[in-house]
């Protein structure tokens, strides 16, 4: 199981306010799939509109990255810049 931490705003929309959710996944692709299955709309929302930070590294387009029980995973808005 991997622990995925959502912002409180995202949690209110998709997980009844629960900011930490656990899903079975070995990589980000599986994580998205599991999140979508458990919380309809969430996996899709993250893939299209959000970034994921794994162990402090913000990834705008994560997909194949490995995740483990020890991974610190946060879901964030996309970040660009000027």
């Amino acid at each position, binding site marked *: 199981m991997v622990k995925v931490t959502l912002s*409180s*705003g995202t949690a*209110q929309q998709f997980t009844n306010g629960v900011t930490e959710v656990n899903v079975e996944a070995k990589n980000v692709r599986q994580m998205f799939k599991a999140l979508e299955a458990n919380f309809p709309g969430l996996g899709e929302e993250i893939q*299209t509109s959000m970034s994921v930070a794994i162990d402090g*590294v913000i990834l705008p387009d994560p997909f194949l990255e490995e995740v483990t029980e020890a991974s610190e995973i946060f879901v*964030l808005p996309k*970040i*660009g810049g000027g």
Partner: protein
Amino acid sequence: MNEQPKQFKWVGTRAIRPDGVDKVTGRAMYGADLSLPGMVEGKVVRSPHAHARIISIDTSKAEALNGVTAVITAADMPVADSKPVASGEAMINFKDLANNVLAREKALYEGQAVAAVAAKTADIAEQAAALIVVNYEVLPHVIDVMEAIKEDAPVLHDDMFTGGVKPKPEKASNVANRVEFALGDADAGFAAADLVIERQFTTEPVHQGYIEPHAVVADMNPDGKVDVFCSSQGHFMVRAFCSQLLHIEMSKIKVTAAEIGGGFGGKTTVYLEPLAIMLSRKSGRPVRMTMSREEVFRGSGATSGAAMTIKMGATKDGKITGAYAELYLQAGAFPGSPVGPAAMTAFAPYDLANVKVVGFDVVSNRQKVVAYRAPGAPISEYGVESVVDELASELGIDPIEIRSMNGAKEGTQAAYGVKFGTIGFQETLDAAKATEHFKTPLGPNQGRGVASGFWFNIGGESCAGIRINEDGSISLTEGSPDIGGSRASMALMAAETLGVDYNKIKPSVVDTDATGYHFVTGGSRVTFATGMAVVEASKAAIDELRARAAQIWDVDVEGVVWEDGHAKPASTNVGDFEPMSLAELAKVANKTGGPISGHADINAKGAGPAFGTHICDVEVDPDTGHVTVLRYTAVQDAGRAIHPGYVEGQIQGGAVQGIGWALNEEYIYDENGCLENAGFLDYRVPVASDLPMIDAIIVEVPNPTHPFGVRGVGEVPIIPPLAAVSNAVAAATGVRFNRLPLSPPTILAGIAAKK
């Protein structure tokens, strides 16, 4: 810059920029400089109303004018899908982008394009534009962000329902989205505080103020292929957006990046480019379009104006126990303000256990917001850094000390969730405190302000090619438009990696047919991400050079190492061979397998967060309210300064833009929602004579994920000035204004109220 041990031969030197001579002698080609045979000139017709329904557009008189080659309206443009895409600081929607490029049903701000013409001369185009008759139904408008969220405010989009809330609202409103971040329990944090300060702040929208207006030349051939030459922060972005908007395959569009006279985020989207392509298609000729300065103000995006509440609590010894922010950011006519980054960065410089940030993205009848250096961060961090200053003042604690005792360090969890790796915030505070500036006494009516800032920095897609020419010179190709001297930085990193003379390398920013996809030049990403691609491409070329030497020496490639620009035997066991230089290997490349090159196509990860701390001294004239910036020092962690001169330039430029935001810049609208100061005479940006030299101090805490430690520098320096200036003015006057800009009337009113 701090004295660093000499580690590199080229990285960290102040080499002459490869594009410098062309730029100072007027040879460099900017967007408006290209002229093609048969080229015609384009002109945009813009809405005179802040909010109006377009009933009809009659183009017949314009089309009949001698010399007119094409007239277009939204009817000539495919109806775009409602499809989100990442652009700059926000997700955008192609339906919105299409409407921003050319209004279809409603004009949502004064200056929005509603039609365009092309004609043999600019004068004829202007006459034709005046002959286009647009019949409008004028609608009530709203500009101010807090007015726009009122129940009875005119609603811009009757199909827009606030996102980020559950259940989905049943009534359309101007609030496009809500974001929220929380860590711990903010209320519990306030309960534990000895002092709680809550303040409301406002900031005005400001324009990026790039010197070069938007400009493009587009040429569509009869077979449907398109050449575009334009001023842009991302020619791949231009290709992608035009492809989507006009339903043209990407492979048929070649975009060449002109030299660019500033962008600062404002050129991370398209305005004229799709129009020029449509006019070229209809004219059968190349079309050039340029914006006037007035059009830049009326028709292109600024950053958000904002209103916010900031609340922070601290113990009497200065430990911050709780923090709360509520942010309302204008998005302009379509959703997509930088409220997300504003919310994430607000408290990021601090190690806080109890924090909550709520943000709202609000549409109103003004230009669609587009990125501006560190989008959103200057706004939210202005409020936070003002309250931190007030906490320090009330508690009798040095303003740098309170930041240091609460400042983020390696392992700190930011309010937006991520734990920082190696960061250099404390080092910027230490460097600021050690300056002679911070210790210098002040005189009457003078004040000193301190503020800090944080930005994430980003990576993203970049490519690079290293081609070793027959004579040993090197052609370096990449596709990130050079705004701040990046060609020099790329060449320095290549020279360092290859072990060759910097002057042997010619870097080029090539067109979209000549390299792979690059994300825009923005987010302080190019030196990090494209630099990483250059290093990888250089290493690939080195691998090939080693292989060629191995062939010549008839040894295994593992027996060849690359040192100081030469192939050498890895040990005496390999054999007794004279080292071969890159030039010697290049000379015989035809005999060892042909041309030698290295390429890298990457999606760079691991951008290093960056922090800065600024010190500002001002003198306030109590009779006129005029603020003079006496002295300014900006300290920033660059990770590694590849070219210190250009890093200092970024720091100085960002600081100046932030000072302008703090003191002068604002949009002034009349009662009809029309802009009254669409020019640099009335929209006052700081010029060289207004300011002292900005002293830039570079701190280097290397980013471990980059081969040379680069973090990126362009975003951070615009963040601290808003609060640094405001805090200095508060110290000079004894009045906390809590609104920007601090123009003379505002200062005088504050001083009078205090009396």
